[in-house]
């Protein structure tokens, strides 16, 4: 087989599996191949088991699968789990290897082949330490073995490339790029380590030891290897966002760190706040002051932001844009695992009623485009905007074409200038207008002095308890979602993928998109024709479209990464249509392509109302 391959590297946290896997991925992309790469790790700094999956294909994979063709084990646990612990948690990955697949592991572990309990896989014991020492010797560093021990991962990378018979130079290049400037020497060391692994595999296991090969393909247009956190961060920069607040939290922090590292280039203020309450309120303060602003968090932080969100709502702040990187809750939950369980909370967070826009991008590219739009809508409608992403999207690498920024235009809405203010002296920040939106000044503008308050207020922004004003202000505010709904193209709000006439409609939102699209192909191959209704705007909700699609479908299946099928509930609330079946997963892990296939297959076969998946 060629160019259809899933590789996994596992080891204790701190063993550098990320950089190795990302180097492998880069080498693949540079060879015209396509990748999908995602990581699972514990809420721990060093020592706990983590693993990185890399799927390589000649066509663009949009999800992972639950089997592994070639497993790289940096330690015993990766293969056999932690069943020796008093509170064991997993049984390792050896059973996930596809028949005919293989394991690269440390021959120093002196494992008996029988101990793997499988006779349908190939074993590739590699003397990690000896090879590392050899590699270090070339640089006279073999005395500092302990300092460089982590480099066994690169040896395993080299061996992997050898087994799949891929172009070693591409790996060299990828490694090199990671070590520039003062670190260049370290790069050479790593390349040598990889080379030792590569040569060893070639020499010891022979040319055809492993059944799958990777072959370069012709390069098309330039592609990037990018994760959700980067796509959203870049979306913010493109949108002219000037202010980002955050309080560290997995998996959101990476986004702020990306922005911080590009701070001087884009004059982006990034503030580490004392907590998330401060983070959202600082961002709202900046938005009112006229700067596009944003904050980024996960569930626990968002829980603390509820009150601030309401203040942004009633004061008609032009933002902030809030990125909610969902993770498995409740409370601390599974802090480094994924989930889509904050849909309803995002929709209803904070007491009282006020408008908000909620967008749920389905993949890395949508992360970018939706974030850009979010700032335009925030300013245009003077509302907070929430982007619902998750840990899976945050940390999953994909190769995609460079973003197309043609026609992307910053739209700041009705932002008045001093000249306008000079013309109309009695400026009212909350003026009732025919269009339903009040022209917005910013502090510092002459003639624009305004007041703003979280109390109900009059057109000037002064407190009022008058019943009639209250009613008008409520209507004015709430109506903005309606206004936004009219302007946001329906084609953005929800998308029907696949044949319109398919008898089965899968319904999903957010990060399950890739697995659903890939799973549909398996279903089709199996004779099950489906289409996929992707809901991208949670609010304003595309009621009519959803109604139309679902009422013409023979069977509807919600695929959600949560317990209760929150989107299915929302659909029923808005359209009255009860989704026929739910395929859910709430073990903290993302859907794989095969899980979508299996779940829907169960539904089709048994008419199951509810299928709970858990493959880990």
């Amino acid at each position: 087989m060629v160019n259809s391959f899933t590789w996994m590297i596992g080891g204790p946290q701190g063993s550098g599996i990320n950089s190795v896997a990302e180097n492998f991925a880069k080498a693949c992309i540079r060879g015209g191949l396509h990748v999908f790469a995602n990581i699972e790790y514990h809420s721990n700094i060093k020592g706990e088991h983590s693993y990185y999956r890399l799927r390589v294909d000649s066509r663009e994979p949009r999800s992972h699968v639950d089997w592994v063709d070639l497993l790289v084990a940096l330690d015993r646990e990766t293969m056999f789990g932690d069943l020796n612990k008093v509170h064991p948690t997993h049984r390792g990955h050896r059973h996930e290897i596809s028949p005919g697949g293989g394991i690269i592991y440390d021959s120093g572990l002196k494992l008996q082949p029988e101990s793997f309990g499988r006779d349908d896989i190939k074993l590739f014991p590699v003397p990690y330490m000896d090879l590392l020492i050899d590699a270090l010797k070339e640089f006279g560093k073999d005395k500092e073995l302990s300092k460089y021990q982590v480099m066994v991962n690169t040896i395993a990378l080299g061996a992997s490339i050898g087994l799949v018979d891929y172009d070693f130079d591409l790996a060299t290049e990828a490694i090199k790029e990671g070590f520039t400037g003062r670190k260049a020497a370290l790069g050479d060391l790593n390349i040598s380590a990889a080379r030792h692994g590569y040569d060893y595999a070639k020499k010891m296991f022979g040319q055809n030891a492993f059944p799958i090969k990777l072959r370069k393909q012709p390069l098309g247009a330039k592609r990037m290897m990018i994760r959700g956190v980067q796509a959203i961060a870049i979306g913010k920069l493109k949108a002219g966002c000037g202010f980002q607040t955050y309080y560290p939290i997995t998996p959101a922090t990476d986004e702020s760190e990306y922005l911080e590292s590009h701070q001087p280039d884009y004059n982006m203020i990034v503030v580490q706040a004392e907590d998330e309450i401060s983070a959202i309120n600082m961002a709202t303060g900046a938005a009112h002051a006229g700067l596009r602003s944003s904050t980024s968090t996960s569930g626990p932080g968002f829980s603390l932001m509820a009150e601030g969100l309401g203040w942004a709502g009633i004061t008609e702040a032009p933002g902030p844009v809030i990125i909610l990187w969902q993770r498995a809750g409740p409370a601390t939950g599974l802090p480094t695992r994924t989930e889509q369980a904050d849909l309803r909370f995002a929709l209803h967070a904070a007491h009282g009623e006020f408008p908000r826009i909620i967008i749920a991008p389905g993949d890395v590219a949508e992360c970018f485009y939706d974030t850009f739009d979010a700032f335009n809508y925030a300013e245009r409608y003077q509302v907070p905007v929430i982007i619902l992403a998750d840990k899976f999207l945050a940390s999953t690498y994909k190769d995609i074409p460079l973003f197309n920024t043609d026609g992307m235009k910053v739209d700041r809405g009705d932002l008045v200038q001093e000249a306008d203010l000079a013309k109309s002296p009695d400026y009212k920040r909350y003026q009732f207008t025919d269009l339903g939106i009040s022209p917005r000044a910013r502090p510092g503008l002459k003639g624009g002095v305004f007041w703003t308050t979280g109390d109900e207020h009059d057109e000037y922004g002064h407190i009022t308890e008058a019943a009639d004003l209250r009613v008008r202000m409520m209507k004015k505010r709430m109506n903005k979602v309606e206004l936004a709904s009219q302007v946001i193209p329906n084609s953005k709000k929800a998308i029907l993928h696949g044949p319109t006439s398919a008898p089965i409609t899968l319904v999903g939102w957010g990060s399950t998109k890739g697995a659903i699209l890939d799973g549909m192909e398996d279903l089709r191959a199996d004779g099950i024709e489906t289409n996929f209704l992707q809901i991208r705007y949670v609010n304003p909700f595309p009621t009519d479209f959803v109604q139309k699609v679902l009422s013409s479908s023979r069977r509807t299946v919600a695929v959600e990464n949560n317990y209760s099928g929150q989107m299915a509930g929302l659909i029923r609330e808005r359209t009255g249509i009860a989704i026929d079946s739910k395929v859910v997963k709430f073990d903290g892990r993302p859907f794989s392509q095969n899980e979508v296939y299996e779940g829907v297959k169960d539904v089709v076969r048994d008419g199951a109302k509810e299928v709970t998946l858990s493959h880990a």
Partner: protein
Amino acid sequence: MLELKNYRTQVHNDWCPGCGDFGIVNAIQMTLLEMQLEPHRIGLFSGIGCSGKTPHFVNAYGFHTLHGRVLPIATGAKLANPSLTVIAVGGDGDGLGIGAGHFVNTGRRNLDFTYVLHDNGVYGLTKGQASPTLPKGLKTKSMPAPSIVEGINPIAMAIASGYTFVARSYALDVRHLKATLRAAIEHRGSAFVDVLQTCPTYNDINTKEWYAGDDLPSKAPRLYKLEETGYDGRVADPTVRDETNSKKGNALLKSFEWGEKIPIGVFFKMEVATFEDQLANRMPALKEKPFVEHDIYSRDISPLLDELA
């Protein structure tokens, strides 16, 4: 030439007759007048409480925020537009109860702004419960029993938190308050002013008469001015650690004085780089003009994309 009326609004003021808050809002207006700060260059921020209504009475950009959140919101606005003169006001419950975490962590930043605490010992707007500054053992009018928790010393807390200007004044001594506010606003860095504020409706202990010392045998006013005792809280050279520490130490010791004699005036002052200065060091473009005035329409992200390609 700006006049007092330029700093006033037509909004009906619904504070109780005799409330110390009147003194504070007057002093703020008079200070702004004295400094001839243009209303549109001022951002006045408040929390929730009786004190929270302040911005509505002042003709300046006014932000009446959430209970306890005035500092984060003011911080965000100031960072977005450092050319604004930012003044935050709020109650003692707002600032040291629900807002204590922001109080502490804002002090550390040394943002160039002024924070005015309406220190009345009670939660005014919710009808007179003990606020964090009420000393232990006291029972004001509407409390069912005396407080069993230690009162917070706002001056000590501010110094421990890193405010670089720490002063106290009195709502009913508008002259002193005005001078103190002016010094606070002119200070480059985080300035904190603890304003002793009478609440004739709920605080029947720390009344005007009490501050005047009417209950003392001497009948002498409790409040005395630090400046008049030769006390000097100013750090001449902040790079000298010993001086800084000894001035802080003096200020802290002074802050414990509370009883028959209560000091007002500047307890501590030190000028060091502000948060904005340091940000601008990292991003020189921010030195040229405030961020809100930058062009955001044409950012080029292609270098970022290339980095990932």
